[in-house]
Every structure is written in structure tokens, then in C-alpha cells.
């Protein structure tokens, strides 16, 4: 057991854990979207989990830093909040937020983060960006809603964990990146419709299709 201090409060944790794990296990919330307990290496792509520590001059991502005895962590400094707010606004500028029709139970992850870092759900002063993709994409067993997806990659990661391959993957680059299936047609897809990706998605971007009718 080692001790670290988070925002002035001492907590106990184990060697080898990341700051994010240690905090979440001790009931201290740090905004995160891409963190997956089961992943050996953190994805570190959402860029929301910034904290300041006594070891670094600049904010670092809590999901990539391991704890050491006596580490002093601050989760709510000005520099941390600035990065978190920008990251969140960037996400919201590409995410169509439609609480009325959204299938995700409220408050969703995004609402929770917004409340925690005290910003609204709009991207202001950034504007909403349009992407050149369909509103709904048919992925054989699911429907994919690119405008809800925040590219956290959890679906891709759980898929690889279960299948040791990646039927579900990213395609395209940059702002046009989307989640997609390798190949098409239910019969030749290396996917047995386990639904792990749907379950892990924080935003309702993957929705299972009703089973095909018998007729």
C-alpha cells in the first residue's frame, strides 16, 4: 500500500495503478471517456483526465501516469480546467447533442463531465462543425450514429479483447475518422453479435438493430 494526496486529501492505493484508477477507486471523479479498466495500455485519446502532479510542470493525463508513494495530485487547477474545458468543447462541437431523442440514460457521461468542469453542453465560443458523413450508418448488426460518436475507441478495444482480431475498427483519418466494420454482410463477418461494443459505448452511437424477422 502506498499513499498519495489528491486535492489535499490523503488516499491509499497500490503500486502499479494509474492516478486515474487510484482516484476512481477512492471515489474521486476525474473526467474521462476513453479509460477502460481491461486495457493493458491506456488509450489516452479523449484528453479529459488531466491533473497536475508534484512530478511535472505541466498537466499530465491521469490515465497514463502511475502512482508513487507521496505523490501530490491536483485535479482542479486552472491549467487543468482550461485543457479539460477546451477538450470538452471540441468534443461537443462535433457531437450533436439532442437530449430529447437520445437513447442514453440521463445524466449521460457528457452531462456529468459538463457539470463537473462547470461548462454548458454547447461548444461556445467554438462553433458546431459539420461532418461529411451520413446521419445513420448500417453496420450489419448495429446502426452507427457518427454525430453522437466521441471516438473514445472503447467499442474497438472491447471488440479486440473479445475476438483477438478487430472486426470493428476505425476508418479514414483526421476529422473524418469513423468506426466501421471490416467487410460487410452478416455471413462473412468475423462478428458473432456479442454486443460488447454496444454495451460499452458511452454515447448511444451504436444501437443494436432488431433481429431480422422470420418471414
Amino acid at each position: 500500500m502506498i499513499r498519495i494526496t489528491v486535492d489535499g486529501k490523503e488516499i491509499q492505493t497500490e503500486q502499479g495503478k494509474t492516478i486515474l484508477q487510484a482516484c476512481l477507486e477512492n471515489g474521486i471523479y476525474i473526467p474521462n471517456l476513453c479509460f477502460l479498466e481491461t486495457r493493458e495500455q491506456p488509450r489516452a485519446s479523449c484528453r479529459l483526465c488531466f491533473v497536475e502532479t508534484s512530478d511535472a510542470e505541466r498537466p499530465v493525463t491521469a490515465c497514463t501516469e502511475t502512482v508513487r508513494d507521496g505523490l501530490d495530485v491536483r485535479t482542479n487547477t486552472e491549467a487543468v480546467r482550461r485543457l479539460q474545458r477546451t477538450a470538452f468543447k471540441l468534443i461537443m462541437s462535433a457531437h450533436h447533442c439532442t437530449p430529447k431523442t437520445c437513447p442514453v440514460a440521463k445524466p449521460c457521461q457528457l452531462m456529468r463531465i459538463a457539470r463537473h468542469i462547470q461548462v454548458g453542453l454547447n461548444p461556445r465560443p467554438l462553433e458546431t462543425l459539420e461532418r461529411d458523413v451520413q446521419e445513420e450508418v448500417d453496420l450489419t448488426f448495429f446502426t452507427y450514429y457518427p454525430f453522437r460518436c466521441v471516438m473514445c475507441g472503447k467499442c474497438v478495444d472491447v471488440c479486440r479483447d473479445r475476438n483477438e482480431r478487430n472486426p470493428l475498427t476505425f476508418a479514414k483519418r483526421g476529422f473524418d475518422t469513423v468506426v466501421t466494420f471490416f467487410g460487410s454482410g452478416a455471413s462473412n463477418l468475423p462478428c458473432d453479435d456479442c454486443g460488447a461494443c454496444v454495451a460499452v459505448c458511452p454515447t448511444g452511437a451504436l444501437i443494436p438493430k432488431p433481429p431480422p424477422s422470420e418471414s
Partner: protein
Amino acid sequence: MANKTLEARFRGLRREAERRVQERQREGVPTISIVMSTCALASGAAETRDAIKETLERIKVPARIVPVGCMGHCYAEPLVVIDHPASGFPPICYHRIDAGIARVVIRSFFEDGDPSFEYVLGALEENDLVPPVTQFPRFNLEERVVMELCGRIDPGDIQEYIARGGYAALARALDGEPESVIDTIERSGLRGRGGAGFPTGRKWRLARSARSERKVVICNADEGDPGAYMDRTILESNPHQVLEGLAIAAYAVGADEALVYVRAEYPLAVKTVQKAVRDAEACSLLGRGVLGTAFDLKVSVFQGSGAFVCGEETALIQSVEGRRGMPRHRPPYPVEKGLWGRPTVVNNVKTLASVPPIVSKGADWFRTIGTENSPGTAIFSVVGNVKHPGLVEVPMGTSLRKLIFDVCGGIPGKKAFKAVQIGGPSGGCLPERFLDTPIDFDSLAQAGAMMGSGGMVVMDQDSCMVDVARYFVDFTQKESCGKCTFCRIGTRHLLVMLDRITKGEGREEDLEIMETLSHDIKAGSLCGLGKTAPNPVITSLRYFREEYEAHIRERRCPALKCRALVAFYIDLERCARGCDACVGCCPVEAIFTTKGRKKAIDQQRCVKCGECMVACPPEYNAVFKVSPPERAPVIERPPENGPAPAGNP
């Protein structure tokens, strides 16, 4: 040498190579070297070669035709060197030799003994007959460590490299302890030429001390910066120097496997390296039991599919493993856990090519070149508005002014220097007052640019800095791997704002948003791509802010570049009555005849292609370009004349 087998093996190789090369010289036939690198082929070197062969056959002169690599003088391609000691002339380098000129030069050289001075660039040796190339600043201000043999030897012939002292450094390294190689490299102060300038010796030591049975060394020849082609050229011109460096690196860190990662868009480089690997294996310089020692090294060539981000070391490794090329968080660094989980050294082409000269000539020699903190040379591919674009290798510490104005001949067309973009899309745009900045890792970083991997774009007064920033951000945002939030979405916001500013739709608040967002993208991104992508925006905002403001506040592009913000008009005073040189060249019939039988432009129709400005005879020079477009005088089209105004048929 302490190891007798090694010494005997290498001496045998060296003697054999020297014997073969001398034999060729003794034959007494002239040697004609033709630069056949990608840059030369693009200028028609293949046609030149065919014309030379054909002419020689016709006039029945036997000669040895040798394809060589790039000399760096890309502005002067196709380049041909005639080396014929029996003629009494020194080896002469000819420039801009197309197929037609080739026939003339060959005939007059061999039939009339006339070296055709009008096509001579210079002699490659000091002599009394032909002015030597060393008279040009382009030659005498350069200092060649990495590119010394580029353009001087046949890249496809390992014997030439060995005869010139090649692979002696490898033999020497193998004769000592790996640790002592690392000591030498560490003492030399060599810093990585792939961009960040990480000390190479330290990187090797970390890999050496990583505990693992199997280690890997990778040569990074992904080279994705727009306008940069140093690494391609080196691989095409002298692949063995890179392979020798790679083998020394592998020996030093204890690797038994090495990889050259070249982008598939470099087919000639791929082919050249593949052949070089086979030839080196045949000479026992690579493969099992190198030169009879216990050192094994399997070298393979991997073709990357050309994503800029795959030059980033962790993405590169992912792509070799067959995954999507996305960077991952470091640590663990590749030296701890890289390809297939093994400790891996990733080094740039130029870094590795610097290694053999250091091992041969010593760390102290290397330190005499360059500066205290950046020893050695810097290689740039200089492009843009300079008289002599191409590859240059200068000592670190050379000023930008010297490089641009003395080595590369300055700005053509009596135009003024405006800015230089160093370090590719991750670098910055520096204005005139930075021209005395020495070229080294730390000085450039301090000025807000960076060494990068060696791209340099020189811009004259006609470049719009907003447009330049837009160009580079467009590149990085397209090449972002899409993994992390700041880079994927943040760079797109930058592009959207820059786009609208160049269209005259910028908003006053855009500049501040761009500035804060740029700093957050740098601080928040996962990999080097995102961390540096805003640099062109940050530096141009810092050094050319008034240009942004003119675009936003006055709808004016000071460089007259942004199409939406300029207009063309014809000055009626200057226009010659009855002349209609411009009318036919206009693709949209925007030019009409005024009541006074002069010409005018219908601004509604004009697509601002600028053709009329080119077509107007220089004695009238009546077409003008202005910004903002409202500054163009409005001249009504007479009703009876030509097509009706657009949108009103």
C-alpha cells in the same frame, strides 16, 4: 585490428573492390555519369541517357555510362559528368542537359575536342582549363558529411562504396566492444536528425541496457513532410552509408534484426535499398556472421503506405505490426518496448548516415563541424522562391541568411524576401528579422520554428502568410490519425477559421480563438503531430499579425494572393485602343469593349484567373490587380456588347 579473421576478411573485400574500380579506369574509356535520382528523372534524365547512348553508338565512341545519385543541385538537372582523362580535360559537370543538348555536347566533346563551355557547370577538380565548381558558393559553402558521396558513386555498385572507404567503419566497430561504439557516438554529440534532436548515443545506451534477448533497429525513411526529400535522395544516391550506419547501430545496441521503413511512394529508393541489402549480404557485410564475426544481422525493407503520422515512431511500429498507424502514449518508449514488444531503436536516415564518418574519423573530428550543442551538418531540401533550390548540406550554425542568399542564390525576379518556413508543417514561419538566426536545434526552437526533418520553404513578397498557414494546417488536419480530441477536432477548427479569413469572411474574435486554441492543442495532444500542428498558425500570428488583421478588418490581402479578396481591372489610360490581346485568353468572356474601343473587365463574370494580366503586352501593362476588390473601378458594359451579365440572361 585485434580480430585477425575480421581484418583479413575486410582487407580482402577492400582490395578486390579497389582492383575492380582501378581496372575500369585503366581501360581508358571515358566515364559518363548521369544523375538518375527521382528529381533528375522528373527533369528528363532517362531521355538524356538514351540520347547519350545513341549518340555514342553513332559516333562509335566506347564509354562507360554510370547512373549516379543526386548531387543536390536539383535546379540544374539533368546533370551529366564527362570524365575522360585522355582528353586532357578534368571531369566536367554539365547542367540542364536535355536530350537535344546531350547530342550536341557529346558530338563536340568527342569529335571536335570542344567541351561546349555554354553548358558547363564546372570542373570537378582544380585545373587550368575549365573553371571549377568550387568557385560557386553553392559548392564551397557546403560541407558534406552525409552527402559526400551522393552523386559521385553508382548507388547500385557496392564495390564503388567499398573502394571509397565504405564499410571500414563497420569493420572497425566490430573489432571493438559495442560499448565503445556507444561511447564514440555519445562523445560526438550526434543528435537525431528526424526532428526532435534527441542525443543518439543516449538512445542507443538506453536500448543496450534494456533487458531482452532480442532487439531491433529501425531506419525511419517515412519522410512525409510536404516538400522534403532529403531521405529519399540519400537512399537513392548512397544507400550503403545508411546500411553501414544501421549495422553499426545494431551491433552497438545488441540487435539481430533491422528494418528500413520506406514509404511505398518512393519506388526507386525501395528498389535501391533492396538491392543494396542483397549486395551487402553477398559480401558478408550483413546477414549471418558479419565479416566472420559472431554478429548476425537480418535486414528487411518495409514499405509504408504513406501516412504522415506513420513517421512518428510509435505509429510506425504499429503499422509494421499490421495495425492502424496510430501513435500511442510514451512511456514506454520504443527503446524499452517497441516492435513486437522488443527494445527498438528508431533513427532517421541522416542520423544513421552520419554514423560511419564519426566512427571512422572520430568524435573529435565531428565536433569540429557545427556548434557546441548541435555538432555536425544540417541537410535541407530548400524549395520555394530561391534561385537554386535543391539539397544542401551545411555546418550547423550557418545562418539562415547565408543559406538562403549565398548558398541558394537568393530570391529570383528582384523580389523581396518575406518569410521562411522551416521544419515542414510542424515548423514555423520566420520573418526577415530572423535571417541571422543560426541553424541549429536550439536556436530554431527558440525562434518558434524547428529543425524538423529538413524541409525549408522560402517565400517572397507575393506569399500571403494567412494562406501559407492555411496550407500547412490543411495538411496536418488531413493527416491527423484521428485518435485524440485536440488534434482531430482542434486542427479542423483552425482550418475552418483560416479558410474563412482567406475568403474575407473572418471575424474579429477569430484571432483570439485561434491563439488560445493553438496553445491548448499543443499542450493537450497525445503525439508530436498535434503538439506541433499549430506552429505555423502561432508563428504567423506572432510575426505577421497585421496581415491577418488586413484580411479581417479591410477585406484586403496585402500579398494579393487570396482570390476572394482581389480584383483585376484594366487601366483605360494605358489600354491600347483596338488591341484585344486579353479578350481571347479570358476563359469566361468577362472582357468587353468599352464605348471608347478600349477593354474592361466585367467583375461579375471574372473568375480572377489572372490570364489577362499575362496576355497584356508589356508595352501597355494595362491590367492591374488590387485588394480589396472594391478598389477596382466599375465600368458598365455597354448594353449592345457581348454576353449579358452573369445571372441575368
